[in-house]
């Protein structure tokens, strides 16, 4: 079963980790347990008081058992959203 991720290689994806963080970056590779290579990635930190803070991180290997959600980033839609005006509660960690 070709993994859905293979279509997104070299594309911009958004990952939500089990500790509630949101990391956006270019998918460079992945493996069977969904370990993921994210290049030129940055973390989006949401808060109710300020706009979305984007923290540049660079090259990441994220472990599959720490990933909750992966989605392809819609570049146009993302460009249109003004992250400075976005206010949101940060996600809580997954509870096992």
């Amino acid at each position: 079963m070709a993994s859905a991720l293979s279509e997104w290689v070299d594309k911009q994806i958004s990952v939500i980790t089990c500790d509630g963080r949101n990391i956006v970056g270019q998918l460079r590779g992945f493996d069977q347990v969904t370990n993921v290579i994210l290049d030129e990635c940055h973390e989006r930190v949401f808060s109710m008081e300020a706009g979305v803070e984007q923290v540049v991180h660079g090259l990441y290997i994220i472990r599959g058992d720490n990933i909750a959600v992966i989605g392809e980033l819609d570049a146009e839609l993302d460009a249109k959203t003004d992250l400075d005006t976005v206010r949101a509660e940060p996600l809580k960690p997954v509870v096992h």
Partner: protein
Amino acid sequence: MFPLSLLTTAKGNPMLIELKNGDTYNGRLVNADSWMNISLQGVICTSKDGDRFWNIAECYIRGNSIKYLRIPDEIIDMVQEEEMPVKDKNKKSFSHRGRGGRVNTTGRGRGRGGRGGRRGEGRGNDGRGGPRGGAR
């Protein structure tokens, strides 16, 4: 490209590893295996809340206790070099990598300010995830 082959290529390079308990480890990668078990040397350990720091000569980290690894950007170019067939090695695609100085890197993003909350049983690892032990 496989994450574990990228990791192997990164041997000898500095990297940052955050564990599931929230501590981060900055050090040089000495060795890694197929379970992502890792040994680092010249390590600085930062506590979960970013308020305490330790110097450690060397440490063994178990793969399944890792959240993520941050490795220097150049490593990925080294791996692509190896993978690229010889003929088009010269016309290396130069996507605007913006590899220059990093802009407003404020480090650990949301890592600062402990996540707190009792982890309780922590990662309740339910033996069902991996390939099945016994015949079913």
